[in-house]
């Protein structure tokens, strides 16, 4: 195989600029697989920043993909607020009982110190270690839960939906606190060496709330928050649909969008072309039992739908590949991208002919 013409970082920046790099960038958004590499349980693996940094570096080497991912687990922020994190042996840690059980507690919330709180400090440590090792060769993708989506874990999903529909002043109070936290947390990760921030915002997806409601709520939250983050963001719908709100997402000034496996990637690409980079949309659940032919078909389909003109990063649909996805599948994805993802996409032109 010939030497790549670009580093991973150059490749990603080129595609984010809506130009074609040397090949389609591949983000294998692996979190728990690093534990396998180090021979640790998931709980032990996430206990130290140095483990996650080492795990991510090994995964980068093993699969030859294009990013380091400093995401630990979704409730790491909840842990910082004093909430409970529940570990399991074969899946991502979950948040336990919501820690806001009484509306009056919202006005008394204290924003965690993002640099001193142990749960967040270990993420920053992992980020610093990765940056020290990788320099400018590959991007480090940090993660925040959007202020709008975080309450699903803070109050519980049902209570939060009721709040959105029935108590807008309380909702606004919570957003003010969450926005302040999110901005500090994102900027601390950028300061530690993250290249960009993945803004997980599944609640804004039309799969979860109607667009009209999004325009009154999550849209404004995203506009205010993203404008205060000192780096590029990618808004991720974590398996939710994005197509009906592509123009709205563009207006929030985010640079990329993580889309659903349920969406036609070609349609999403056309809506995004020249404005938003498409991130997606391999089905992480089906991936568990893909054979090589299925990997090839899925990679080809995504590239055919979205890679022309740049503005595309091949990834999974959820922003976290399940622990059960075997190494062989991940290697096969990487091989397929190296085979079909080289620009110019001659095979695509020939197929069209």
């Amino acid at each position: 195989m010939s030497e790549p013409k670009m580093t991973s970082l150059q490749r990603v920046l080129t595609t984010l600029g809506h130009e074609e790099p040397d090949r389609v960038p591949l983000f294998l958004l692996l979190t728990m697989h690093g534990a396998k590499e180090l021979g640790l349980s998931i709980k032990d693996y996430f206990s130290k920043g140095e483990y996650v940094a080492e795990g991510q570096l090994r995964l980068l080497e093993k699969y030859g993909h294009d990013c380091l991912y400093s995401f630990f687990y979704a409730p790491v922020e909840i842990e910082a607020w004093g909430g409970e994190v529940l570990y399991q042996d074969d899946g991502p840690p979950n948040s336990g009982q919501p820690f806001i059980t009484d509306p009056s507690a919202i006005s008394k919330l204290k924003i965690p110190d993002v640099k001193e709180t142990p749960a967040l400090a270990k993420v920053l440590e992992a980020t610093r270690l990765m940056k020290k090792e990788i320099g400018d060769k590959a991007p480090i993708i940090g993660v925040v839960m959007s202020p709008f989506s975080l309450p699903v874990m803070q109050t519980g999903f049902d209570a939060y939906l009721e709040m959105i529909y029935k108590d807008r002043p309380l909702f606004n109070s919570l957003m003010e606190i969450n926005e302040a936290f999110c901005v500090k947390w994102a900027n601390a990760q950028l300061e530690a060496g993250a290249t960009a921030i993945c803004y997980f915002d599944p609640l804004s997806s039309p799969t979860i709330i109607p667009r009209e409601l999004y325009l009154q709520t999550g849209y404004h939250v995203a506009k205010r928050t993203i404008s205060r983050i000192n780096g590029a963001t990618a808004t991720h719908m974590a398996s939710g649909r994005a197509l009906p709100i592509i123009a709205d997402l563009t207006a929030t000034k985010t640079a990329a969008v993580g889309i659903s496996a349920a969406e036609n990637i070609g349609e999403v690409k056309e809506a995004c072309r020249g404005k938003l980079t498409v991130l997606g949309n391999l089905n992480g659940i089906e991936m568990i039992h893909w054979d090589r032919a299925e990997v090839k078909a899925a990679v080809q389909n995504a590239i055919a739908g979205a890679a022309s003109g740049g503005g595309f990063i091949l990834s999974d649909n959820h922003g976290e590949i399940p622990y059960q996805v075997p190494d062989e599948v991940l290697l096969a994805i990487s091989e397929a991208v190296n085979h079909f993802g080289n620009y110019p996409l001659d095979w695509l032109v020939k197929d069209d002919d």
Partner: protein
Amino acid sequence: MPEIVDNFKNALLSSDEEGASAILDQYLLKHTPLQFVEEIVVKTLDDIGSGWENGDYALSQVYMSGRICEALLDRALPDQSGQRWHKPKMAIALLSDYHSLGKKIVYSVMRAGGFQLVDYGRVEVEELVARVTEDRLEVIMISVLMLSSALQVKEVVRRLSPRSDNLKIVVGGAPFRLDRQLWQEVGADAVGYTASDALHIASSLQGGKADE
């Protein structure tokens, strides 16, 4: 009739509890609560559920619709009325998972559909198997969000199969929507992709009202 279904659906989609309640009150002047369930509620929730499945509506609308209908039917068809369907004997559970919204939606929709069912809450495999066996259930509805939880259904099936010939295990949740073969791989008897699918599955297994 279609006009009232449309009006009811619009009230639910816009989370207009008062509007939905007024439609029920108007309808009950000439019809029974069970007719409201069969003619209006099931059709409407079906439509909203399939609308979510194909991307026209959002989960929050499914949730709010279910909650509003559940409250309306709790008023019009209280448990002690004897008019709810007690068969098949069933329960719903969140298995080894902490994401309870899906279970709550299905529970509300089942209640709004006139069914009686027990809510086991969040359970691990051991407790679920024990309770299903002890309660001699005919249907257990299992809700999950995490893939690791979905895979636990295999163990539930393995442990329940030898002793419960008449039990049907119905599963639902995101992993089953993303992988349409997964419900068979874990050995479930049926899968629901929307909350109203659960209504139809229960109806198809229904032996009649307990009080009949």
